[in-house]
């Protein structure tokens, strides 16, 4: 009889441990199911809405433009056309902009510009990056032949974060422009 009672206790102990382990966290979190199973986390809720095309970009719109044109012009030696663009990172993680290209009108021609080197933007931070391209023939190499805020076309941007690569086309980037 004593042995069978002992056997009963030995068998019941794991069941009790498992039951307590389920009840205890619920009790500690005020019987809130979501709070106990998966508490709110900024990294889980950050994604949707931060970029146009993901969750409608509602959060992105609230936080202001992610891409704003700072100015354009010719390099000192007059051989290249440049466009300075400020990029803002609203996401809660560091982002690397690997590629950014655009076309701007320069006189009667259109110049294709590309980012000189990749830039890394910390969470919530911003950087000014320069897009460059060759000066088209026929565009004067002196003075300021380019508008300060030119109309951008053929926009393309590739960003990378945590090994995930995102390529944004014209429509997506237009939604991020000021």
């Amino acid at each position: 009889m004593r042995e069978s009672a002992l056997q009963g206790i030995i068998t019941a102990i794991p069941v009790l441990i498992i039951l307590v382990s389920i009840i205890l966290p619920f009790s500690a979190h005020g019987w809130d199911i979501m709070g106990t199973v998966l508490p709110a986390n900024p990294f889980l809720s950050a994604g949707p809405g931060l970029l146009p095309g993901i969750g409608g970009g509602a959060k992105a719109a609230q936080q202001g433009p992610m891409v704003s044109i700072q100015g354009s012009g010719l390099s000192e030696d007059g051989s290249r056309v440049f466009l300075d663009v400020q990029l803002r990172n609203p996401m809660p993680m560091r982002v690397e902009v690997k590629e950014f290209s655009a076309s701007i009108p320069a006189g009667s021609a259109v110049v294709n510009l590309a980012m000189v080197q990749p830039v890394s933007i910390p969470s919530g931070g911003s950087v000014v990056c320069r897009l460059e391209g060759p000066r088209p023939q026929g565009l004067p190499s002196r003075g300021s032949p380019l508008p300060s805020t030119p109309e951008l076309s053929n926009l393309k941007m590739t960003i990378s974060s945590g090994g995930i690569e995102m390529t944004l086309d014209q429509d997506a980037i237009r939604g991020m422009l000021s």
Partner: protein
Amino acid sequence: MNGQVQESKGIYRLNYPGLIAGIALVILPFLDAWWFFAFGTDAVVIALSPFQVVVESFGNEIISPLLASLNLALKIVFIYYGGLLIAGSVLRAREDKRSMADFLVRVSARKFLWLVIFFIASVAVSDFIINQAFALMGVHAQVPYFIGDSLVPIRLAGLSVTVPVTQGFTDAFTIAVLVAILSLVAYFYQGRVTLVRTERGLRFRRIPTGVPVAPEGESKPAKTDDQDR
């Protein structure tokens, strides 16, 4: 066979596979995760075992209080089962405690195998759910089952995302499978096999049904396989 047996008591009657499996069961909860799954390099990293669930997003750990509590409970329970398996394997040497020894091994030895099987099934179900979710989202991508790398292309309005997915079992899982097999061996060893010293040295002998394990001269006959059941 009895004629060859010079000694079949004391340490020879310990359940050696059970002893080793029991010690391994006590250590195993403190080893690494069994399986890992990563989106990107560190965008989302999941490291799983029944004893730990680590979810990290961009280096930030996401903790579920319920899972953390269940992991701790499973750690305690399987250390407990390890203890029972050790106790049952050692008590097998004492004829008066044979029934309790068999009970302890019976209760503890197969649980870990079930845990490993349940874990493998859970991983398969997770991969299946991920693939079904991709199909529902219209993403033409397949995550390989259990092990492997893949690139998941996702296209949304104006945005194309390429997500490298990596998953695989770790060395700790291999150890877990070996321990599960050893625990199963211990379960069958308990009632059916014994170590005996013969003229040619130590040998494993199958306990014949209805024949006592103990050599002649011992007061109590050993419980047989059939009696245990």
